[in-house]
């Protein structure tokens, strides 16, 4: 095959403009496609992040109070009564009050410090609140320590900031604060004047938000034994018995309204199962991944079509020369190899430029949008795709060229 490269290069010099255009097109396509692949992979990675929640059986009720003037003790009594009603339902395994839930799409988070005087925070943690049923309701995996005791659960009214003395943290947070793995029994501060002591560790537990600013704090969360009796409203997280999610979701609001009518549970999104919650919170990521996918496919198709078009033109232009070569003894497969090699050379030189452009584009996204640096794997995959695509696109016109009869040499002279 080697012997063919020199004549090909000589021939390409006759088609400078066309060669450059194909190479340029391949370069640009590669630059865009490898970045798109990188974005798709990142976004899909987000989509499959584990929340730690038993998502198949858990749903969330957004319960707003219709009368806002209630005192904290009135709200607390109502919340307790609601929870009893919910837990008594046959389809319900457990329920907890909450001020937020994993994958909610944002919510309460506190800076964490090791000492009360510390100015620069050590890190940041998403804050969950719930009673002693929180761990079981979400189906979290308690890997060390113990659950909250009922007597540890405190009440937090609307205007208050309460720091309970005990806390359960996610393993990621525990390891971040105490890298030696001895977090259990240790204390830290989370924007309060008093310390809070780790009594349990769960793994995993996703944060409430999925925004990119919190990527540095991924998986860092703490749970405080608090009933957040906000006079505006409360979340009830409910875990259905296996296979009874639909029943539980139908019965729960009825039970709540039977308890007390003075509440607002939105008919549209007042009750959401975890499939819906997950779908919603990752909608932007999924949309972006789909868009990148479409762009890549269309781009590759256009580039392939462009290669087919230009190669066909070249074949048409060179019929006479092909005929001469055939008459001089070249076999069909030599002709085929000629065009495939020609395309290979153009593709490779195009991809070299494409790699540079691809990294330049990535650098732009890194500086403009604080995205991550692209690893070489995506570029490698892109190069492979484009070279294969080029060969495939050349195949049809090249086959046509190989079938040119030697007689052509004698024809139009």
């Amino acid at each position, binding site marked *: 095959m080697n012997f063919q490269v020199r004549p090909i290069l000589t021939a390409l010099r006759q088609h400078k*403009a*066309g060669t450059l*255009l*194909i190479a*340029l*097109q391949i370069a*640009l*396509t590669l*630059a*865009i496609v490898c*970045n*798109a692949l990188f*974005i798709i992979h990142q976004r899909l990675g987000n989509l499959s992040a584990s929340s730690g929640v038993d998502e198949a059986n858990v749903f969330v009720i957004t319960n*707003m109070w*219709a*009368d*806002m*003037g209630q005192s904290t003790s009135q709200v607390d009594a109502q919340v307790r009564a609601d929870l009893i009603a919910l837990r008594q339902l046959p389809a319900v395994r457990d329920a907890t009050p909450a001020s937020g839930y994993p994958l909610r799409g944002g919510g*309460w988070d*506190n800076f964490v410090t090791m000492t*009360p005087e510390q*100015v620069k925070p050590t890190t940041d943690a998403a*804050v969950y609140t719930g009673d002693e049923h929180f761990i079981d309701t979400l189906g979290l995996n308690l890997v060390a320590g113990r659950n909250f005791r009922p007597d540890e659960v405190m009440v*937090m009214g*609307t*205007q*208050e*900031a*309460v720091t309970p003395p005990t806390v359960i943290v996610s393993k990621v947070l525990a390891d971040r604060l105490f890298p030696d793995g001895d977090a259990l029994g240790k204390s830290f501060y*989370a*924007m*309060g*004047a008093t310390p809070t002591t780790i009594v349990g560790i769960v793994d995993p537990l996703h944060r409430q938000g999925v925004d990119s600013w919190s990527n540095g704090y991924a998986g860092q969360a703490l749970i405080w034994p608090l009933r*957040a009796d906000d*006079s*505006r409203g409360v979340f009830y997280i409910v875990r259905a018995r296996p296979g009874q999610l639909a029943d539980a979701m139908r019965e729960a609001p009825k039970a709540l309204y039977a308890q007390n009518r003075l509440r*607002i549970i939105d008919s549209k999104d007042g009750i959401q199962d975890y499939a819906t919650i997950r779908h*919603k919170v990752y*909608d*932007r990521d999924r*949309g*972006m991944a789909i*868009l990148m996918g479409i*762009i890549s496919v*269309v*781009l590759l198709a*256009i*580039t392939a*079509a*462009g290669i087919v*078009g*230009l190669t066909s*033109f070249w074949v*048409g*232009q060179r019929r006479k020369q092909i005929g001469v070569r055939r008459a001089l003894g070249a076999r069909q497969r030599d002709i085929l190899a000629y065009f495939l090699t020609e395309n290979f050379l153009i593709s490779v030189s195009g991809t070299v430029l494409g790699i540079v452009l691809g990294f330049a*584009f990535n650098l*732009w*996204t890194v500086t*403009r*949008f604080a995205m991550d640096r692209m690893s070489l794997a995506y570029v490698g995959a892109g190069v492979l795709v484009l070279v294969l695509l080029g060969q495939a696109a050349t195949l049809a016109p090249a086959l046509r060229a190989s079938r040119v009869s030697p007689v052509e040499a004698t024809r139009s002279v």
Partner: protein
Amino acid sequence: MLAYYLDLALRSLKRNKALTALMVLAIALGIGASMTTLTVLHVLSGDPLPGRSGTLYYPQIDPRDNSGQLPGVEPPEQVTLTDGLNLLHAGRADRQALMTGGSVPIQPDSSAVDPFYVESRYTTADFFPMFGTRFRYGRGWNAADDEAKAREVVINGELNERLFGGADSVGRNLRIADASFRIVGVLDDWEPNPHFYDLNTGSYGRAEQVFVPLQTALDLKMEHNGSNDCWGRGAGGVGRIYPSESCVWLQFWVQLDSSSKAADYQQFLVNYSQEQKALGRFAKAPNVRLRNVMQWLAHERVVPDDVRLQTGLAFGFLLVCLVNTVGLMLAKFMRRAGDLGVRRALGASKRSLFGQLLVESGVIGVVGGVGGLLLAGLGLWVVRQRPSSYAALAHLDGTMLLTTFALALGSTLLAGMLPAWRACQVPPALQLKSN
């Protein structure tokens, strides 16, 4: 001459249907993708209050004690209640308003209608004249009502429609959060996008339905929504009323009608900071900013990064489509070297050949542009089906329509230049010889 060129172009395009279709399709896809993303970008980075935004400023001061010790650190994005009221009462700007957002339950009189929550804004009187809100009925309240903690409310057209069927409801009573309010004004459809005056409650499509005097809302301890940043051991977590000294949770806007007034106001902010430092309230040297609406929106990077990224990629896409078209046109024009040679030999100048070939690329541009416009329409329809907060805003306007055509025609003509020029270089005699 143009008619003749058009005729030639159409004949030539018809001769190679697949190639023509490919070129048109590539242009249409490229234009469609870039116009969809560009329109979204254009809509999202638009001026929320054209004609007014230049004189509206967002003062920032820095009352923090320990955080942000580094020089050059931005002051907080909002103000504390104490500073907000001080600046408001100083009255050094042409107009000024202190505000924050929340949500309140509306409790209709008739028991047939369940209570429901709406977004609310707690603000001082100048909000309405300063932002130029249009009223359908009535008007806003005045500064005296602010201080008197008047139980007065302005509602928007949507809520008026829902509660009163669109009738003039001024003077009627409305129960909000267990208190009775008198309606003094009904806004016409007024929804500035982006929601520049408070980006914490969402940047787009977030117009409030209820406007309550700030002092009244504080008095009634109405719920506050949005961002609240505290420092020290001031607070942590959820709550209704924040410490007035160590938490920022209000927005303060001023109207300054000339740039010299803006410079004076900036100096006033510096003086105020120094004064507060002397009083022991502020710990740091004066750290102030005074940005107008568009500067503020740019600073806050209100346009989502994903939208910018998509626009960047879409233009890359268009570039590939154009390079593709250049290549295909080159092939096509060179193949017609014979025709062109004959035309040259018969006396056509290079210029007229060039013109003829450009007309041919122009035809592709126009058809591709129409296709691109249809695709952009489809693309924007898809964007509108998405659940993002700005979905409803994604519409093509006149400017973008013209831009689409200019972009399609301009880029294809540009793409046709090189192939046309190359094809014109054909020496007539050579082509005649080989046939």
